[in-house]
């Protein structure tokens, strides 16, 4: 089992202005790591921003530098693809608070010369989006042809449309919500408590110790991974089948394939993700509620929005169920905004947005191209 994250070089930029956070704290000169794909045109009008999910990263269409795996949406973002990098300039930035090159708890605090750990300020989805907007400012990009994201990426896409309506032509929000539900907060809290209960977490100050809270982070990942799937999907893939054995062992080994699969998910996750980043990003999602600053009226977050909205949900997704997307659509109607919505059928639960989904791809392509 790996015990430390590999140091990897990422494409980075230091923001030339301070980032004021929703908490009131300020990051003086945060770093943003990002990847780009495809040429930008002279008018800088062909930019698509992709926002990544909780444990994803900026390597949307390029090989992950740690795992060596293809980008998480490499089938979607490619030359001639659904998001055609021959025609669009695609940007994906690692969110603030994460651990793939953007400032986060594992970054060095200039004040102490040591990693921030839990001294890193709590960030929000709004802060992530503000940092992305500053990145675009610095890259000289005023307006986005589209902002697209699934899950937490969808939250960012919604926040982009709410906070920067004049900079966004269209927003595609997939398998997401305008607020984190009590159930979602509950699952996140289980994950956080698993990390913090690991003695190797050491109050978050583990970076120099040579010990990482791999057990806690692994359990957090296992619990979360269940929420990304569906009962039908699990039954279809694993059922009650045993793992590499003919009979039960009458012990607590991973007898069942599903146990073995989850353990693998947990263990492989710790090689590529920082436990403190997991705490910070799950917290950011929990705090997300676009209606909160408007007295609970979500429509007021989008009043007279010129943005064209597309929303997609999956019928087996119980983490971000269709009802959450419908709530957004109703609010957008109430706000007089242009909104389309589709519920797609899939057995794969929340993860469906990352998997091969020709219906979703066709719809994405249509939405991106519409009106051109």
């Amino acid at each position, binding site marked *: 089992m790996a015990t430390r994250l590999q140091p990897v070089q990422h494409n980075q930029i230091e923001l030339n202005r301070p980032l004021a956070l929703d908490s009131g704290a300020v990051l003086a000169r945060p770093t943003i790591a990002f990847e780009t794909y495809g040429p930008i045109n002279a008018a800088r009008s062909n930019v698509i921003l992709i926002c990544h999910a909780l444990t994803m990263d900026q390597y949307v269409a390029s090989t992950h530098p740690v795992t060596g795996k293809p980008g998480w949406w490499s089938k979607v973002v490619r030359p001639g693809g659904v998001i055609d990098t021959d025609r669009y300039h695609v940007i994906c930035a690692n969110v603030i608070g994460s651990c793939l090159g953007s400032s986060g708890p594992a970054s060095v605090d200039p004040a102490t010369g040591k990693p921030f750990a839990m001294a890193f300020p709590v960030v929000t989805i709004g802060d992530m989006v503000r940092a992305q907007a500053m990145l675009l400012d610095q890259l000289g990009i005023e307006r986005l042809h589209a902002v697209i994201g699934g899950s937490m990426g969808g939250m960012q896409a919604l926040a982009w449309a709410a906070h920067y309506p004049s900079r966004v032509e269209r927003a595609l929000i997939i398998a997401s919500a305008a607020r984190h539900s009590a159930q979602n907060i509950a699952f996140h809290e289980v994950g956080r408590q698993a990390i913090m209960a690991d003695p190797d977490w050491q109050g978050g100050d583990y970076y120099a110790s040579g010990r990482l809270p791999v057990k806690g982070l692994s359990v957090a990942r296992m619990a979360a991974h269940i929420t990304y799937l569906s009962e039908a999907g699990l039954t279809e893939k694993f059922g009650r089948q045993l793992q590499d054995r003919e009979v039960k062992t009458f012990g607590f080994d991973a007898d069942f394939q599903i146990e073995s699969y989850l353990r693998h998910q947990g263990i492989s996750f710790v090689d590529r993700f920082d436990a403190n980043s997991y705490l910070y990003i799950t917290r950011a999602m929990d705090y997300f509620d676009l209606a909160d600053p408007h007295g609970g009226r979500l429509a007021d977050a989008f009043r007279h929005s010129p943005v064209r909205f597309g929303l997609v949900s999956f019928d087996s997704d119980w983490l971000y169920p269709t009802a959450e997307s419908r709530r957004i659509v109703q609010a957008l109607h109430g706000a007089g905004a242009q909104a389309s919505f589709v*519920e797609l059928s899939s057995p794969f639960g929340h993860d469906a947005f990352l998997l091969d989904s020709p219906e979703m791809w066709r719809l994405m392509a*249509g939405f991106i191209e*519409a009106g051109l």
Partner: protein
Amino acid sequence: MKSAPTLRPDLALIAAQVPTGARVLDVGCGDGTLMAALRDTKATDVRGLEIDPANVSAAMELGLAVVQGDADRDLADYPDDSFDIAILSQTLQTSHRPDRIIDQLLRIAPRAFVSFPNFAHWRVRLDLLWGGRMPVTRLLPVAWYETPNIHHVTVSDFRDLLRGKGIGVEAAWYLSGDKPTSAAAATWRAEHAIFLISR
């Protein structure tokens, strides 16, 4: 952008009647053919509700704002008076409670176009009279066990429903094939009926 195909006769008639610049909700909008025509020729702010995801995708490709949903359930989510005109074309007879849908249409908009195939058309009557079987015609092409049309309605039935609810009829058009037919003969001769109703 894809060019809009030729409109079905009832849709062409509705499109011609919608005032320029109106806010329109097309309930059961299909692949968005009428919506696209309204947007392109009448500069209307037009939105759609459609039950079939493949149709919603097709409409989104035309750049239209269409929400997947079920008229029986999801019209309740639209605010009062959020549109100037609601359109329900060839969808009334597929709904579980056509009467409640009419109520919803006139809550969401002060005026509504409602079109449906007339089950009292002479060919349908003959089929039933002589064949003794549920008719399968050009406008009702699917056998009884798999037809989406679960509430067959005639011109007279619809007039009665409106009268019972105190709903006004601003205008009505009756089509036999592509040709208009008179109100007096409509109950026998109309294949399609199109009503413009108001509160």
